[in-house]
């Protein structure tokens, strides 16, 4: 096991050392990513200044949605967010260099970088989650603790899957990062809101296609015993692992097709 992970530990360690060697800019990045997190939170809060309820959720429930979904996305962003720079890697020939090393290409891409500056963003999401849980008087039972942990874990898996799926598409769509970003970051934005206010196309896309609803909204409903829409059962929040498996199936397919295309058709 140790020797299996040795290459990846070396790669990640190198990136961490490289990032911390630019101390001032690393500090600024930490602060700016904290501020962005707070602004996104303020957006939710401002909406609730005008109304008491959105889509059947009050502010405290919305905080749980935000906390779960944003923590999961931020962890995914920290771990694999850099995969959306794949077009740069292709242009600079870095991807060709990956091909010369005896590790799987995706594993190399994922461990080629790590965005520690996003730590503060994870902190914001997690703090909001804790506040939301306390405000809702969620009792600490084995099942509630398990549901929260499971949601964070599978939510992170779903979001990393989305990043990877988007990266696979970049092999075809050089310079189309804006299109894939609309799904990735649009999904993040949608996931931070109650899913019950989504329009039908949004439900299709972010409820089931790219299953963002399973990163925050649905687990929150199950956790807080709120009515679940879309003809789903009350325990829909527990289905998040299935959503994660589905998302990783899509991600694997997209990545495979993308690398085949690169080796077969690109230049």
């Amino acid at each position, binding site marked *: 096991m140790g*020797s299996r992970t*040795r*290459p990846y*530990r*070396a*790669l990640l360690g*190198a990136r961490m*050392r*490289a990032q911390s*060697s630019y101390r001032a800019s690393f500090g600024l990045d930490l602060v700016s990513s904290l501020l962005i997190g707070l602004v996104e939170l303020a957006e939710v809060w401002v909406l609730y200044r005008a109304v008491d309820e959105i889509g059947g959720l009050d502010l405290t429930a919305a905080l749980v949605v935000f906390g779960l979904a944003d923590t999961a996305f931020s962890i995914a962003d920290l771990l694999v967010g850099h995969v959306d720079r794949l077009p740069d890697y292709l242009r*600079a*020939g*870095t991807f*060709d*260099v990956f*091909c*010369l*090393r*005896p*590790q*799987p290409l995706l594993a190399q891409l994922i461990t080629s970088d790590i965005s520690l500056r996003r730590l503060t963003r994870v902190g914001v999401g997690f703090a909001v989650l804790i506040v939301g849980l306390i405000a809702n008087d969620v009792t600490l039972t084995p099942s509630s603790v398990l549901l929260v942990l499971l949601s964070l874990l599978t939510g992170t898996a779903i979001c990393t899957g989305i990043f990877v799926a988007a990266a696979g598409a970049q092999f075809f769509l050089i310079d189309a990062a804006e299109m894939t970003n609309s799904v990735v970051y649009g999904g993040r934005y949608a996931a931070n809101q109650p899913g019950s206010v989504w329009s039908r196309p949004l439900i299709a896309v972010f409820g089931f296609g790219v299953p963002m609803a399973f990163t925050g909204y649905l687990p929150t409903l199950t956790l807080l015993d709120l009515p679940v829409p879309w003809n789903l059962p009350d325990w829909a929040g527990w289905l998040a692992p299935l959503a994660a498996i589905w998302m990783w199936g899509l991600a694997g397919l997209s990545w495979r097709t993308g690398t085949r295309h690169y*080796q*077969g*058709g690109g*230049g």
Partner: protein
Amino acid sequence: MPIIQTEALTRRFRLRTKGFRSREITAIDDLTISIEAGESVGYIGANGAGKSTTIKMLAGILVPSSGTALTCGLQPVSQRRQLARRLGVVFGQRSQLWWDLPLAESFRILAAIHDLSRDRERERTAELVENMELEEFLATPVRQLSLGQRMRGEVAVALLHSPELLVLDEPTIGLDVVSKQRLREFLLAERAAHGTTLLLTTHDMGDVSRLCERILLVDQGRLAYDGSLAGLSRTVAMRRVLVVDLAEPTPDLHDLPHAEHLGSEADGLRQRLAFDPEVTTAAALLAAVSEQAAVRDLSVEEPDVEDVVRRVYVSRGR
């Protein structure tokens, strides 16, 4: 068994032109070559001749459109990860080093990537650092190295896992004379010590004449010559170029014996004359020039690959 073997290897690219129309170009056309372990082969050709495409197919980066390639007895694409343990590649234009970190870190990381034991890592790193004379800038971040220093680092890390085959794509491009010479000497020593097979693409006939026993010349994707450098010079005469700076503007020197006037600059103040060293000498040509004009300065240029390729064309009657 040959270390590189290709059979009718072909690679086509589709280029998008305006709108939805596309045009197909053949980068490598029906290439059949066989290279034995221990050989040292120069793979030469003009820009766009298909050299890098061939290397990418041999390394498993690109899939051939048709035909087959075996590198170290392995299928490059489907057995890419096994091949990576036995193959070293240096791309002159793209770096394998970690830009932000000291050069020494790149050795450490690549040792982990190839899972070398600590002893092997220490031993091999020490050997490469000594032979390549990297000691003085081992602690310098790669982004601060000069091009020559960086290329020495690139070649050294590509050899860290002791590959049996080393492929170099334009390793001396942009290097000064001293750096080129160092790199060549190192490659010769590495080959003598470990029997490493070398395949290098280059524009520099100096690389070829000092490093390679065999030459493969590609032109527009097709193999145009396969044999020794001496054989190539017999077919196309490796011409050198005498560049003379004259004291006064002079009409083009067209009628010199055994020389071809290639061009003039500044009203004939500088003239470029090609000659075949097997037929005449630089001294004889200089004497002939001196009869017609006063020479202020001169230099002699090595033959370049473009010129060789052009003349292979001519000799084949195209």
